[in-house]
């Protein structure tokens, strides 16, 4: 059976006209399974400054200084949300050791009017605005609540260490 029209449309737009700082490409052998990269937002502890320093050309930084994710559209999509996970290690109160993400729109607040694009933009926004009150990684959340500056320092360290190509 063929891929639903909606998935084809979304994929075409994702590839042809990607959102700034975000890429998503489907696997050849599974068009519901996407390799995703998200650039850490500027000014957040997830912006990879060292990668930025390496290249004066900003477009070069798309390939390094980014977080890798994987995304899967289950059979029921868009009635059910896509499944998304970080593959790059990240020190963030709403993302656990296995890269699982705590984000309401991926769970009970999902709406079929949302899209892959909006989901990825929301995840990018989550990097700018961690929410330690609704934690998935409790130790990180505790760190963020007790000493935000120090927690951000660790986040930055992890970003420098892991978030590159």
């Amino acid at each position, binding site marked *: 059976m063929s891929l639903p029209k909606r998935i084809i449309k979304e994929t075409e737009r994702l590839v042809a006209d990607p959102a700034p700082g975000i890429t998503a490409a489907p696997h050849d052998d*599974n068009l519901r399974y996407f390799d995703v990269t998200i650039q850490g937002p500027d000014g957040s502890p997830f912006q990879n400054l060292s990668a930025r320093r390496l290249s004066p050309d900003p477009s070069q930084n798309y390939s390094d200084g980014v977080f890798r994710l994987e995304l899967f*559209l*289950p059979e029921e999509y868009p009635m059910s949300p896509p*499944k998304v996970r970080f593959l790059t290690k990240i020190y963030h109160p709403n993302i656990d050791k296995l890269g699982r993400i705590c984000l309401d729109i991926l769970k009970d607040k999902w709406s079929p009017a949302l899209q892959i694009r909006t989901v990825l933009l929301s995840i990018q926004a989550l990097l700018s605005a961690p929410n330690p009150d609704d934690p998935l990684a409790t130790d990180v959340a505790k760190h963020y609540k007790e000493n935000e500056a120090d927690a951000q320092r660790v986040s930055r360290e992890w970003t420098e260490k892991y978030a590159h190509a």
Partner: protein
Amino acid sequence: MPTTLNREATPQTLLLHALLQLSRHLSFASFTTPTMAKIPRNFRLLEELEKGEKGIGDGSCSYGLEDSDDIMMSHWNGTIIGPGHTVHENLQFVSRVNLPFVSQVDGKVDPNKLPVLAHWNRNHSIETVLVEIRREMASFNNRKLPQPPEGSTF
């Protein structure tokens, strides 16, 4: 996590360590639901992990990641509670077990000798493997096999 169960406290626990080393590409490469969407390995394993963390079936088998940082989810610990009324009952092993499909040198399971692995099907899961091993342990041929002393390891 089942793997952390204290042996002393639950002497009938059988710990199958490193038995579930999952290939990144082969055996768990992908899975198909009866309809169509092909669930990628990682998302399938995440589902299984969640199921395993919650506890499954009658509780005779359980499993989890060996290392909770293992982002590729390659190494799993399975725990099988030995079937009652067999020699495996009360047999506690992290390790040494005498079964036809287990190498007596290093404890590795020979996939060719364990039907569930020999005839791998995408719809099988980690749970299936553990349940099948447990079934093998309880089988007529294996239930009375002589076993190494308690506490020995490979």
